[in-house]
């Protein structure tokens, strides 16, 4: 064919709606992607499919009721919402809580971060089709889930914080168990860090994908690992420490994890290294935990006050703006979850990339869903139900696998 006969074909612009119910995202959110061939040229983010009017409900509830409502805002970062609301009420009442309670609350926050980051890593592996690492990392996430269940009695909705302290103490036996668990966990997370950085299956899919340059990240106010992956120093634990973060940051042993890459790889590296840092922080908290009471009584009527409580959730900065009015109910309670600020930068991240990379870019700000540990087994023959605890289930499954070796 001569060059004169060659025609340049401009692919037509097609708008592809992804969502609201999308199998890869597990939460309702709609993304309208305009593509030219394989390239994304424009993206519109639509949210609000899950509006539950929690702020309005909260105005009719007492502060104590709101604590439990707050932890139900999110299944993954329930401890952060719960703890941040508790500290907002304490700031408003100008109540000091015991030192040991501060340490336990911070410990729960850090354990929450560890499990959330490992969960994200697994999802990221899954989104790029590296399912072996997904299953392995989620298996090792069970170590920290068991720790949380051991301390709080629940895997997901810990509800450890209450107004004036925490609800459960940590015994010496639990402390020893956890320290042992951290050694195992650190070894495993270090392995996943090396997998994420050196394994080409993963790295080639995230290297240079979903670029968010520092000036754009500043303009759209990216928070959490999304912002830190673009080199922004936005970590509330360091910038605005509360609870046991104050003595922890005074030691100077801990560093804010930053990456100036700005792509999905940068965000992954920040999250994995942050997990190791969170393990070290938890270890420090356990080893330096003071003795004493775990709860201070706070009167239910809170004086009129306005409080902006900030906390670094696993996904970024979490804000509870609380206005109290002298009764036991809030006058106004505003929650700003970290993902809300990251939506604005999402459209920019998607533009210019391939359509096939859209799932990992969408997942890179960390999707959110809840899971459960106890299962109800229904016998098909007589429809009898029995509730099985985690340990029994694990024993039974191990037994089953022993009796049924891998089929050829």
């Amino acid at each position, binding site marked *: 064919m001569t060059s004169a006969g060659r025609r340049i074909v401009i692919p037509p612009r097609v708008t592809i709606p992804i969502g609201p119910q999308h199998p890869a995202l597990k939460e309702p959110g709609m993304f309208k992607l305009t593509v030219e061939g394989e390239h994304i040229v424009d993206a519109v983010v639509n949210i609000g499919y899950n509006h539950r009017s929690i702020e309005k409900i909260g105005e*009719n509830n007492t502060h104590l009721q709101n604590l439990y409502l707050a932890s139900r805002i999110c299944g993954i970062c329930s401890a952060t919402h719960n703890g941040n609301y508790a500290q907002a009420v304490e700031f408003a009442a100008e109540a000091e809580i015991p030192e040991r309670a501060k340490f336990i609350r911070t410990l729960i926050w850090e354990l929450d971060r560890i499990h959330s980051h490992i969960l994200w890593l697994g999802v990221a592996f899954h989104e790029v089709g590296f399912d072996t690492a997904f299953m392995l990392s989620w298996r090792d996430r069970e170590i920290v889930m068991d720790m949380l269940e051991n301390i709080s009695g629940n895997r997901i909705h810990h509800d450890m914080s209450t107004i004036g302290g925490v609800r459960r103490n940590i015994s010496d036996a639990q402390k020893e168990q956890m320290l042992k668990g951290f050694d195992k966990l650190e070894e495993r997370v270090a392995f996943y860090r090396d997998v994420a950085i050196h394994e080409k299956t993963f790295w080639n899919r995230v290297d240079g994908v979903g670029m968010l340059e520092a000036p754009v990240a500043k303009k*759209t106010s990216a928070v959490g690992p999304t912002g830190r992956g673009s080199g922004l*120093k936005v970590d509330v634990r360091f910038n605005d420490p509360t609870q046991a973060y104050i003595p922890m940051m005074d030691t100077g042993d801990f560093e804010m994890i930053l990456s100036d890459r700005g792509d999905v790889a940068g965000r992954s590296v920040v999250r994995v290294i942050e997990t190791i840092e969170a393990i070290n922080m938890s270890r420090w908290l356990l080893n330096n935990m003071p003795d004493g009471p775990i709860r201070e009584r706070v009167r239910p009527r809170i004086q009129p006050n306005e409080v902006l409580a900030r906390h670094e959730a696993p996904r970024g900065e979490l804000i509870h*703006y609380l206005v109290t009015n002298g*009764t036991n109910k809030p006058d106004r309670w505003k929650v700003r979850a970290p993902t809300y600020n990251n939506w604005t930068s999402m459209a920019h991240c998607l533009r210019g990339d391939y359509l096939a990379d859209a799932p990992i870019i969408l997942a890179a700000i960390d999707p959110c869903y809840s899971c459960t540990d106890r299962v109800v087994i229904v016998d098909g023959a007589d429809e009898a139900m029995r509730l099985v605890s985690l340990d029994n289930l694990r024993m039974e499954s191990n037994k089953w696998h022993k009796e049924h070796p891998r089929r050829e």
Partner: protein
Amino acid sequence: MSDTEAEKITEHHPAPREGHEVEYELLEEIMGDLKDSIIEEGTYVHKQPRRIFVQVHPETIRNVVQHMLDKYDMWQFITVSGRDLGDDLQACYHFVINDKKIAITFRLNVPRNKPEHPTISDLVPAAEFIENEVRELFGIVQIGHPNVRRIELPEDWPANEYPMRKDWEDPRRLMKKSRTTGPKEGV
């Protein structure tokens, strides 16, 4: 604390000067620069460390934000909280000055019968979603918003129904009316 006592206490808790020198220094600098935009009542340094609250005239919010962006590089936007104060509606623009590590809130009151103020979404693109949300839930209109659309509420939600206002009643009677109606006396 009895009820009558509680009503007299204001929700503003200014901090003593010692221990909050950095915040006071910054607030005095801002008040010197933006004399015409700031209302002194309601402008104070909060007892909680690293918190400043500034009350501004609603029509000057753009100048204030532009000045803060230029002078202090206040790029980190947190959110906008709407509030129902009875006769007035309030929008609180929360920002963080990341270099000084101080959270600063600009509050503006707009009258309930004409709740309008200029937008800042073109200066701070991060505010686009939340300004839309405040317009939906409180009915505070941001004039000049670049992309007006529904964010949280369903598409068939009736006009002039603002569910986060204190006097809003659920037509289906599924949700109780907020029992806390606005701030107490003396606020």
